[in-house]
């Protein structure tokens, strides 16, 4: 009798040990690799915008394609803070482009993509700040397996995220 129980328990444990754990760990590593790939792609995309001074349809499509190749679905948030006029402008330094004293106004994903989709390109100028945030929207295998053991709810359940930002260094036009 007790033998049977122990055997059943042993088989159960063996199944967890031999299948579930390796699967979870593999899924975890896959996510790690995806995070790394997405992180690199985001950094490259933002640096490209910073060093060329423009967001082009082509660059954006390439970026989306690169991150999608990890096999996940992503939500890409773009934000451009545009350098506005300088309220502290003085006659001796009538430089409209004094970075750091000026106000900024922001444009967000939908506005930026509208512009990029219609014109093929959005020009930025020296001193603008661009930031890109990427979050996955699907549930990765690792997340599903984790949910099986303990479930995480709420907004921050994205497992693959990347964020990069910086000041634009050149005038696009």
């Amino acid at each position, binding site marked *: 009798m007790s*033998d049977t129980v*122990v*055997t059943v*328990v*042993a088989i159960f*444990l063996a199944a967890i*040990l031999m299948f579930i754990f390796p699967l979870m760990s593999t899924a975890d590593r896959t996510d790690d690799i995806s995070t790394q790939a997405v992180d690199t792609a985001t950094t490259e995309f933002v640096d490209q915008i910073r060093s060329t001074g423009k967001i082009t349809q082509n660059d954006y499509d390439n970026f989306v394609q690169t991150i999608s190749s990890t096999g996940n679905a992503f939500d890409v948030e773009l*934000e451009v*803070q545009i350098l506005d006029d300088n309220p*502290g402008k003085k006659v*001796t*330094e*009538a*430089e*409209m*482009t*004094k*970075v*750091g*004293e000026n106000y*900024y106004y*922001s444009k967000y994903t939908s506005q930026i993509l509208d512009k990029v989709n219609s014109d093929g390109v959005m020009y930025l100028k*020296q*001193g603008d*700040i661009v*930031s890109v*945030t990427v979050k996955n929207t699907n549930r990765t295998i690792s997340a599903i397996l984790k949910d099986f053991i303990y479930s995480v709810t709420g907004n921050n359940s994205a497992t693959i995220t990347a*964020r*990069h*930002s*910086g*000041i634009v*260094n050149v*005038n696009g036009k």
Partner: protein
Amino acid sequence: MKLQQLAVVFIIIILPIALVLSEYTNINMQVLNKQAEYDNILLTSTYDAIRAFQMNTLNNGYSTISDSKIRDISASVNSFYNSLASSLGSSGYKIEDLQGYIPALLFTMYDGYYLYGDYQNIVTLEKDGDTYKQNYSTENTNSLKSTNGIKPYIYYTCEYKGSNKFDIIVNYTLDNYISVMGTDNSGNIINMSGYLINPSSVTKDASGNITAHGIEIKPEKLYEYAIVMDSGIDSINLTPANGGNPTYYQYVYYNHQKYYLDTNPEQRATSYNGINIFRLNNNLRTYLNESEANSLAKYVLNRDNANYTELNATSFIDNSAYKYYNDALEFSNKVINLFNGVSYNVVTDSYNNQVNYTKTANGEKVPIHTRTNYNVNEVFKISDSNDPEAEDSIFNEHRMDVIISSIESNLMSIIANFNLHQNSGYEFALPVMTEEDWYKITNNITVVTFMQGIPIGNYKYYSNYAVVANTKNKEFVSRDSIIIRDVETGNRSNDTLGTYHNPKCKDINDNNSGNLIGYNNIDYEQQTVSYDIIDPSSHSTVETKMLYYYPHSGSGAYECVIGKDEVKYTADNLILNTELKDENGNIIGNKPNQNVRKAYISALAREKYNLYKISDYFNKY
């Protein structure tokens, strides 16, 4: 017990241990990742601060004046926080939210530094009947909350005291320029400033010709492209000269400004009254009047009876390099005589009381910067082995020690004081900075940022700093900032754009035969001219136009300006005319090319001489 039972027991024991261990490794990995992420964010933000400073100063003709400099630094601080806020993922962050993690920002300049941090030293207006008065009492300032801001400028100073009345304060800079103040042995008041050089490396013959480091220093013809503005017909709008196209001008330096020779009468503006020379007033072309033109002629031709009519394309030459060595020779002999035969000690506290830092890990005390060990009385004994223009001279090492000890003690106190105004439970302290970072700080205009106290999980707090050097600025001409090119190919009308090189390039040193000239690296950067188009009837701005140009045409050589593969020589090789050596001191290459040396040494002297320096006036009284 049966095998199955053993196995189950084994698994029941091992499984929790394995789970705990994997969770522990996981947390540690997250901490490391978080740390790397914050390192990255801090470095990016610091880069952005530098970029903002560069963009603001390169297009600002008054950037070296201290009022303007403080504005540029505040703007740079704002950019740092802006960038930090957007990197941390919430652009809604205000500066105040982030200030709790930034105990100090350090901006090192040419002859001193600014610290940004919090302080209580604020004076407010107090109502006194119908008027307001300022209240400077300690109780009043102590009761105030702290505020963040830029603290007063601190110079790199060191005081030396001898036995008699000898008491001298020396202000150091990032290069060999020093200001000397105080009293000498017999109590005479000393007040002078200049470049300290090795007098035996420079010879001046009877007819006044100067040879420095074996190179005869000759006057140079300087050219650059510029877009200049003219005041327009309606006296409100400015119009760009030559249709907004860059024009190739010959220029000389005078009073730290460029004076351009205009040979094309077609482009003359309203300020023109017959004299073909102008200077720029914030991009606006301002032609000289007769008295200004005559004083320029006296300076350029080096004669008291010179007249502006003698200035033409052949005589419009720059003597700055000559004047650099001429003045430096005179100044250095004075300094050497002043310190000659005197035995003195350093009395500056920050220099003598070397600051120690307690490493919390094992309680061991580690000095933040290890000072070079030598007798301070040797510093001003200038000889071939102690040439202030060379990297490894005693003078230069002492200069670095003075700068570091000053920065170190002030940073310590500003970061320690930060604790008084924070109640986060984290103790802020100056982290140990590496010698490489100190080297960067003492030889460049830098921004150093500190970020501490952000929880990163596993009961740990983030604490690190970032040092970024600003190699493109108008503040300081370093030994690395000269870029050389062929004299003639600079003019685009010759149809040969030409390639410019780093003087340390092995390729140009091995293969050059042409006539070379050097310019400061910022003159190879894009310049911006912006102007408003104003509607004359309503006086409102209709549009802001931007024009861009490069003062020097051509492109950077791939082997030394864009890439660094062929940059083999050092500045010391070029200045002292020594062979190329490897790390072990074996000779692996020839001495540098003499044409390259000539261009490099002249350009370095010229650009250094024309920097705006606050203590310049010392020599005028």
